[in-house]
């Protein structure tokens, strides 16, 4: 079993009456609600938390891309990942991912991912989401019916740019380039592992199975409601004759650990409420632009993560419901061990994407939950999928070949630069011990 400590980076300071006063946390949320000074603190807190997860031995740390919203403040996850390459050592960097249909030309993604792979010494997981309808259609203006064709074309271009030895011309429908000649090239060969996050579009299962990509099911409805999607995925894998390898599936689950079950409720209940009632408060008209989901997916009855359907399912839920219905796995380490093990077996999932900073949760609670999980839950779940090979994690450079940041020459932090001298640093001194 592998663990990715995943951050959404929510804005933690939406007003109490947010849900009553404003129609949406996404797309047209008033800009005046964002305080950049608080934002400065939040970005730094959140990067600290991801770095802490690296120190605590999580296999990977994760970031993702969303636009014009208070649910997740990463219009550019690549900036976050770049910052993380410098102070993390072991954890892989799961960028889940870049909405490749939005980049023009899409080789921008190939370039930035290659940079991240090189900067991190080959620790990158490249995620290719289609992107939510809010992000792609409403914020970035892509015609809904074009999002999937643009996505597939961008995918083909990026893959070819990573793997072709020679410069080539690309005559796509949406992108035409006379010279595709990627500098730098990624460290990982033939390319960084690719994970495809999905919310339940049936086409995504075929796409993952056909390309041997990892399918990351991003649900906030927990493992019980996630079963239908997981079964759909495994059915497609079986039909296509693919191995039922649990590592080919990732699942996002909200998890919170405390000393006891009762203490967990006291610690985390208000923050769950903030998450489900403020962070996911998306106006129904933005949830699913016409043409964003295919008719095939609509007819398969796949319910969306946001919008009216989702809000109705969450209506009036209290802590006990969140726990009983599996939205959240929380409690003492013993409770979390047992339920999480069941959940992962239930879904046949090998890559848990664990959401530990949720909604308005402050840094001290995030640290406590993360530490308890790392010490008292994670080690007991490592044995879960014996006999399966994880083909979807990065192959970084050996530790001896990886370069770490040099020690800072000055530690006084004076902003004027007075008295600073450039300390000569040999490349040997930079090498990780």
């Amino acid at each position, binding site marked *: 079993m592998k663990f990715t400590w995943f951050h959404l980076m929510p804005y933690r300071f939406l007003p109490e009456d947010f849900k009553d006063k404003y129609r949406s946390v996404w797309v047209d949320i008033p800009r005046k609600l964002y305080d950049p000074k608080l934002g400065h603190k939040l970005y730094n807190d959140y990067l600290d938390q991801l770095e802490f997860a690296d120190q605590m031995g999580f296999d990977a740390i994760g970031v993702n891309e969303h636009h014009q919203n208070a649910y997740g403040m990463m219009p550019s996850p690549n900036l976050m990942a770049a910052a993380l390459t410098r102070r993390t050592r072991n954890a892989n960097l799961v960028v889940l991912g870049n909405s490749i249909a939005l980049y023009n030309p899409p080789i921008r993604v190939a370039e930035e991912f290659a940079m991240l792979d090189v900067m991190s010494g080959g620790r990158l997981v490249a995620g290719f989401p289609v992107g939510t309808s809010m992000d792609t*259609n*409403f914020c970035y*203006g892509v*015609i*809904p*019916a*074009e999002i999937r064709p643009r996505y597939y074309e961008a995918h083909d271009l990026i893959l070819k740019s990573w793997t072709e030895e020679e410069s080539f011309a690309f005559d796509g429908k949406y992108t035409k380039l006379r010279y595709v000649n990627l500098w730098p090239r990624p460290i990982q060969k033939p390319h960084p592992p690719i994970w495809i996050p999905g919310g339940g579009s049936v086409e995504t299962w075929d796409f993952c199975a056909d390309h041997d990509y990892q399918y990351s099911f991003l649900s906030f409805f927990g493992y019980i409601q996630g079963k239908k999607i997981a079964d759909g995925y495994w059915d497609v894998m079986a039909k296509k004759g693919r191995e039922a390898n649990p590592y080919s599936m990732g699942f996002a689950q909200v998890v919170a650990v405390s000393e006891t079950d009762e203490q967990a409720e006291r610690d985390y209940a208000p923050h769950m409420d903030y998450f489900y009632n403020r962070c996911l408060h998306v*106006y*129904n*008209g*933005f949830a699913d*632009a*016409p*043409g964003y*989901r295919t*008719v095939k997916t*609509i*007819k398969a009855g796949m319910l969306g993560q946001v919008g009216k359907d989702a809000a109705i399912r969450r209506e009036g839920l209290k802590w006990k419901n969140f726990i009983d219905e599996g939205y959240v796995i929380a409690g003492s380490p013993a409770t979390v061990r047992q339920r999480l093990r069941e959940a992962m077996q239930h879904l046949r999932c090998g890559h848990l994407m664990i959401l530990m900073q949720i909604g308005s949760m402050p840094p001290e609670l995030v640290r406590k939950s993360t530490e308890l999980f790392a010490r008292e839950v994670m080690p007991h779940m490592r044995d879960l999928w014996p006999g399966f090979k994880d083909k979807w994690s990065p192959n970084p450079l050996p530790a001896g070949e990886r370069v770490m940041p040099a020690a800072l020459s000055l530690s006084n932090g004076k902003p004027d630069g007075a008295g600073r001298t450039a300390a000569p640093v040999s490349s040997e001194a930079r090498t990780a011990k």
Partner: protein
Amino acid sequence: MNTTQYLCDGKFSIEMQVHGTGEPLLFIHGAGGFTGFDPFLEALGAKFKVVAPHFPGYGASTGAEHIDDVFDAVLILNELMDTMGIHAAHVVGHSMGGMIAAELAAFDSHRVKKLVLAAPAGFWLDQYPIPDFFAAQLDEIGPLLFHDPKSAAATLMTSIPSEWSAIEAMYVERVKRLATASKFLWPIPDRGLKKRAYRISAPTLILWGDSDRLIPPPYAKEFLSHIRNSRLHTIKEAGHMLMYEQQEAFVKAVTDFLS
């Protein structure tokens, strides 16, 4: 009468209503498409041979996957006219259909005898932003589209069926239609018509409902100023769906202009 035309070796099938005899009148519907209760078509058939196709992606018409933009739309309508042996016709377009009709007239001025643009899309004015029709929910659509959201015409268009299967069918059809419409209208219904409108030489009637809240009346002036041989007729107590809300006034204005 309902009939189907097959175009481009079957790449497109176009289902259409045909009413009456006389000079051909091509009617191009708006983003929502026909409702199944469109009596103004038959009424226009009293004087003209009305040809009212469902655009690809609407009703039983197929081939939407081959349409990317307004140029494809114009070409497929040219193809339809050729296939039906219509060299030139009066063209009446509503909303998105008005935008496509204007493009058709600009593309080949000889094909369009007279042009009627009923609350056409196609322009964008920063001082009069058009509400986001695609994000609007069913309970918000009535007030956007109708002078009187409680009228029979409005109720017919915005009521929710009671059977689950009918709701699903309605939802799927709406998605199919608007997914096609989004190719011309998303995220802003401006594909450069302003640049091409000087090519429209057909006598043009611009029709507007005086309480259109989707594309407000200032847009009428914009069309007037860009189409040289044009005049404006405003219909009272009509919203964006003027031919549904004030059918008689609509049919009379169109018939008088074309006769």
